[in-house]
């Protein structure tokens, strides 16, 4: 039996926006197992980002609970959440969000400086295939390269789980596939749990499991028996 890494139970998130309330998430329950590659799939407005923020310890649910390795995170205070993010989660954003003032290597070092068990920075840059770009600033790199640096940054602190929010959303399909390949390699070779949140159904084919999200609810969870190679994904 696979080990549960993260367990979400009956998550709801309600935003009060003046006179209207928006229910971004309704009664969502699911598990993420250690070492798997999960795609959370849903159209825009389906609650993906809300889910990611809650799971990543950036936001708290209105109802329900989330536990990571058996430890509840929804009751944590600000400092504990920061520690949770620092130790366990590697974020990858749609717009890369590298710090423009730091070189590729420094962007990665930024997180290795604050983590207790980091990987070697150059090894990680090697892993994403950008060792030779180590001393370039973000503005000197293409979008795909920037995203791979962002992946390196997420991986370097050696977290249990990578949370990727539309990692290919701003990229064309060729560079996008390179990024997905890197994510897959990290999942397979390094054993990191990878969660990709996307509206792009094609990506689901490379996952071990797919969680379908629609209108804030989990519509379906499907196990994929033979995930395809990222190179074969077309969009």
């Amino acid at each position, binding site marked *: 039996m696979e080990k549960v890494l993260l367990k979400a139970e009956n998550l709801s998130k309600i935003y009060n926006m003046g006179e209207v309330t928006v229910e971004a998430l309704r009664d969502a329950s699911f598990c993420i197992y250690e070492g798997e590659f999960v795609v959370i799939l849903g159209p825009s407005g389906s609650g993906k980002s809300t889910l990611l923020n809650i799971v990543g310890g950036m936001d708290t649910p209105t109802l329900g609970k989330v536990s990571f390795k058996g430890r509840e995170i929804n009751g944590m205070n600000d*400092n504990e959440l920061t520690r949770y993010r*620092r130790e366990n*989660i590697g*974020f990858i954003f749609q717009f890369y969000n590298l710090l423009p*003032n730091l070189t590729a290597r*420094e962007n990665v070092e930024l997180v290795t400086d604050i983590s207790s068990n980091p990987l070697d920075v150059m090894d990680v840059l090697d892993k994403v295939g950008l060792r030779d770009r180590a001393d370039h600033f973000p503005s000197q790199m293409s979008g795909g390269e920037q995203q791979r640096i962002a992946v390196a940054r997420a991986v370097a602190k050696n977290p249990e789980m990578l949370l990727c929010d539309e990692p290919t959303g701003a990229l064309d399909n060729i560079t996008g596939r390179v990024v997905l390949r890197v994510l897959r390699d990290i999942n397979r070779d390094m054993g990191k749990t990878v969660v990709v949140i996307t509206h792009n159904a094609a990506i689901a084919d490379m996952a071990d499991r797919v969680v379908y999200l629609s209108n804030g609810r989990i519509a379906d969870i499907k196990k994929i028996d033979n995930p395809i190679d990222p190179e074969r994904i077309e969009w």
Partner: protein
Amino acid sequence: MNKLSLMTLRDIKNNKGQYMAVILVVVIGIALYNASYMSYQNLKTSTEFYYEEYQLPHLFIRLNKSPESIVKSIERVEGVSRVQGRMVLDVPMDIPGYEGKVEARVVSVPPLNDDALNRVHIEAGRYISGDYQGMALVEKQFMDFHGLDIGSAVSPIINGKSIRLSVQGKAVSPEYIYPVPSAQEAMPDNERFTILYLEHGFMQQLFGYEGMVNDIVVGLNDESEVETVKKELEDMLKHYGLISVIGRKDQVSYMMMENELKQLESMGLAYPVIFLLIGSIVIYMLLLRLVDNQRRQIGVLMALGFTKRAILFHYLGYALFVGLAGSMLGSLAGVWLGGALTRYYLVYFNIPVLQVKTYIGVIAAGILMSLAFCGIAGLNAAKRVLKIAPPEAMRPVAPAGGKKWWGERMLPFFGRMGITWRLTFRNMWRNKKRTIFTVSAIAMTVGLMISILLMLDSVDYLFDKAFGDALSYDYKVVFTRDMPQGIINDLSEFREIRYAEPMAEYPFKLKNGWREEDAMVIGIQDQSEMYHLTDLSGGRVDVSGEGILLSDGLARDLGVKPGDILKLESLYKPGVEQEVIVKGFVEQYMGSNGFMELGKLNSTMGEGSTINSALIRIRYNSGAFLKELEDMPFVRSVRAPDDMVRQYNEYMDLVYAYIGVIVTLSCIMGFAIIYNTTTISIMERKRELASLRIMGFTSNKVAELIFNENTAVSVIGLMVGMPLGRAMGAQILKNVPEDMMSLPLVVYPKTYMLAAATVALFVFLAQLANMRRISRMDLVEVMKSRE
């Protein structure tokens, strides 16, 4: 290096202009602080050391010609450590190559300098020695002014005879650090007043004072006993024709130095604090903008696991960097400036043992002060980070609620303005905090400028009043001794003199109960044509009839009101006392005097019609006339009011230099502020401005938007700054010692105009410097970036 610090440094490097501008403001504040405080410390320790080393006496006794044996009896008074009897007399003097007459204060000194009170410092040449006959020491600044050398001849006129003396040494005495004859003469006149030192025995012989003295200086064991010993000496010497016993604090040179130190000390803190305050406002604005702009980056850092505290410190780091860089550069500049300022003081104050040191404590306090100011500003701006919730930070900022502001709703005038102006005011309203801060920074700059420039206006006004309106004579002739009033008729015989008026000035101790003040009482003719007195509301007053008129400053010090009885004790003729009624107050800008009708003054003194000076108005100046007048044996000096103005102006050089420095610095600061505000408002609204460009606004039109906003903010800043400057000026004028001159608070319109023009120029220059940012804006790039 820690990556966050690295980001800070790179960020600063990428926005050099802005950070340099703030750092500059801090540099200025800290440099001023260090300069003032170090020169204060330098002067203070130097003078203290000088007084100690060269034995400045604790008490100064003036008395009528008395037997030298009196010195022995003073020595026996408890608390007295040393006593030195001497002679001090003022005589006219001639020097080669100078037409005018010089007033020399001749002071006798003991044959041995080493152990003397008021030990003389010899700057060049040597102390009088061997055969003392015909040898003199002359005060340094006078020698420098006239280019006199060792061996030059000076000829004091003693008892009507010109005595030729040879200059042996260039001397400086702790008693005359600030060489003025009396407290009435506020400014040193190195052209016409000097101090001549002669050997005691020689001087006695010269003046026919064998075995006599008229001045005694006293050193005490313990300075705290000054008042007790003073009382005792006053009682003891009452019958010896005592004129006065004064402590150091009433000794002119000492008092002037203390005043100067006091002013330096207060200026040393006031101006730097204003500069630092403005600097911290700019930092605050800069960081607010930074935190807003980097919301997303803050979100990323939070997602990566940085604590809020770490991020807060990261932003605080910007402010501390500014504080540290500014204060270190400022300390360097300040140490240099302090040395220069200290040396500059030597032009006016004779301190031969000046110690220019660098005070680590002063520097450290400056750095701490700067870090505190910048840190508090930075913390206040950076604490905004705490309010940001991570998921929110990742989302773009919701557009600020745009709406019409109340001005537009209430006043139709605003609504009818062109679209750019309407946008301008809405923007200012939308970002109230920034508007308020910018307005206050500009107001403070303007205030600073006006507060210091108005000193020029006030001095100008004072000269106009004191020498223009009040004194309408051409020359004042001072006699060497009391003369019968008939002398006026003799003067009138000069063809050149159209009109002459008698005048008398005598020193008195004015007493009202326990309060007492020493002052000159001036006796003038009733209905004087040439000496106009005005009351506090500007109306003409006359001295006619009984009673005394007092300058308002003197009246305040004595705590009297019209109708009160004042006791006058003559300091000129000891023992002469009289009670007079206080008739009223008069406005007096320079000096503090009492005024009486000449005849009444004479009867107060218990004598017939004597005068000691005359006011004259001339028909024409024949050139030789003044020389002829000055050469008359009974004439000590002939002065025009203009001479006084010139003398003042010479002294004012130091003040002008200070004003120049402050004005220049506030200009630099003003520019830094406006430049920064302009840059911030462009950066903040990049997208907005780019959208306007895309919609078809020309870059000039977009620039106009920014320009209008700066103009509006500057105009408001000016309006607030003008009264602020006036109020600040009033505070500064309060520090000017009143018995010297009472500066009225006057601001001429040209000063306001100058301030306005300067701000206008800065707005224009800042705009020019920023045009590049607008015209070179990469529209596609700006619109693509999410923020």
